[in-house]
């Protein structure tokens, strides 16, 4: 599914003294099957933007087209249908768990879709497997007796069970330990490659984003600063720093190394790529 954002603006509490323009005329297209990273500091408008993609928020002006269809011109029932296709995983999604068992909780979305018991069961099995958990071992447990990392995964499975064609994740690794972060990111990556779904990942970590995505959307004060490939975005160090963002450490290193090795590439943002480039340059 492709998502086209057209001249989207959103103003909170319009006309009151608390008026706040969160998004200002955003226009971008997220192509079918792509992997997009969104980065920007707190209050930049990231969360407001993603909540428009499945119609949770209504724009002040402009619109969103999903597969060419204007989602804000549809009926309420169709909007609910749309939410089945555009899955949104909120920050700290484990705070939405409520059922007695993991199986029931993951089945909440498919049940709302009106699927049959068999279909629900099958989807729940599949999505629990997709997030790397053992269905039989976990299905009858209460979601509240799981560890933090497991709860997070069950919550993500709850959205995956709706089989969305577009998956949006708002900082899925916040608050996890290094191993937990790595595992969640690896699962998202494999979901993208295996199921070919469009993924939008909101993150604070330049390192994580750089490793995974096709294109990065940098957003500041409700406006698009960059929407380009990681290679291009990460060379704009001064612009990124001016809006309070930092590039990965290795990117700074490459820039420093350029003084001694002028031929070294600067568009490096992973340890792996840095290693290759340094070896190439040093060994000649």
């Amino acid at each position: 599914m492709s998502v086209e954002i057209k001249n989207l603006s959103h103003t909170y509490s319009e006309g009151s003294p608390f008026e706040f323009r969160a998004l200002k005329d955003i226009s971008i297209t997220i192509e079918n099957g792509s992997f997009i990273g969104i980065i920007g500091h707190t209050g930049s408008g990231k969360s407001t933007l993603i909540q428009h993609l499945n119609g949770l928020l209504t724009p002040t002006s402009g619109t969103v087209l999903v597969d060419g269809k204007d989602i804000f011109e549809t009926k309420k029932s169709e909007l609910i249908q749309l939410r089945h296709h555009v899955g949104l995983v909120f920050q700290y999604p484990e705070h939405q768990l409520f059922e007695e068992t993991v199986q029931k909780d993951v089945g909440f979305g498919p049940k709302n879709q009106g699927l049959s018991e068999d279909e629900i069961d099958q989807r729940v099995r599949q999505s629990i497997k997709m997030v790397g958990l053992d269905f039989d071992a976990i299905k009858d447990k209460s979601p509240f007796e799981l560890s933090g990392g497991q709860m997070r995964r069950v919550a993500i499975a709850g959205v995956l069970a709706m089989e969305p064609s577009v998956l949006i994740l708002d900082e899925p690794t916040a608050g996890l330990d290094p191993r937990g972060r790595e595992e969640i990111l690896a699962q998202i990556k494999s979901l993208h490659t295996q199921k070919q779904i469009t993924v939008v990942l909101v993150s604070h970590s330049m390192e994580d984003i750089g490793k995974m995505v096709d294109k990065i959307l940098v957003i500041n004060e409700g406006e698009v600063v960059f929407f380009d490939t990681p290679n291009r975005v990460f060379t704009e160090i001064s612009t990124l720093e001016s809006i309070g963002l930092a590039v990965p450490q290795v990117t700074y290193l490459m820039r420093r190394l350029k003084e001694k090795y002028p031929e070294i590439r600067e568009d490096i943002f992973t340890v792996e790529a840095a290693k290759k480039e340094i070896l190439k340059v040093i060994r000649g």
Partner: protein
Amino acid sequence: MLKDVTIGQYYPTGSVIHKLDPRTKILFTTAFVVMLFFLNNLWGYLATFLILATITLLSKIPVGYIIRGIKGLVLIIMLTVVLNLFMTPGTTIATLGPLSVTLEGLKVATYMALRLIFLVVGTSIMTLTTSPIDLTDGMEWCMRFIPFVRRYAHELAMMMSIALRFIPTLMEETERIMKAQKARGANFETGSIISRAKNLIPILIPLFISAFRRADELATAMEARCYRGGENRTRMKQLAFEFRDHASLVLMVMMIVGLYLTTMINIPLGFPI
């Protein structure tokens, strides 16, 4: 949005009423409310109206803002008026089908309506001019003079202050959980009342769990900061009566006496009530 809701409805203008000690305002308001129930003729209500109008002007709060507060109670006021109008026995002055309006009914209905409006306006001026934290401090002090409640004064005040602190946090949380469940296809907008009530479960359970977790963490954090109840506790901000408070208390006594005197006035206003 939910978080725009301002509980306690504090409206800062920096007026002299705002600067009064919270205890003065609590005492004054209490005296005012008690006096309302002694009034028995329109002279008294007229005097009360003048007192309220003076205080409102002094507080510099827009009159429209105060009237908006009454709007929420229109239904209750109407109901009281209608009930009193038709249910009071006495001299019939008009009939409406099987119902009849009596002169006494008209009188009681008018008094009740005025009493309710003055009650709401009077108390809301207190909350509008006193910050929640001052109000809590003031109430803690006042509770010390009420038997039985006295020994829990500190705990009650602390509970109130924590509730005020967490209302915005929990409002935001509710909104977030609601959106998260909507994203999972939950429908809160359509359907019968029963199905809508059932649909609240996915919001209420996470909300309770989160509130309990917060309470637990907050309790630990309070203990870590040496909280052990009201014993030996000091306060940074000391409440202190100033000249304006003493003056207000003198005015309060004058109000009580004045309003009491109105109950003895026997001069008719030119119309039957």
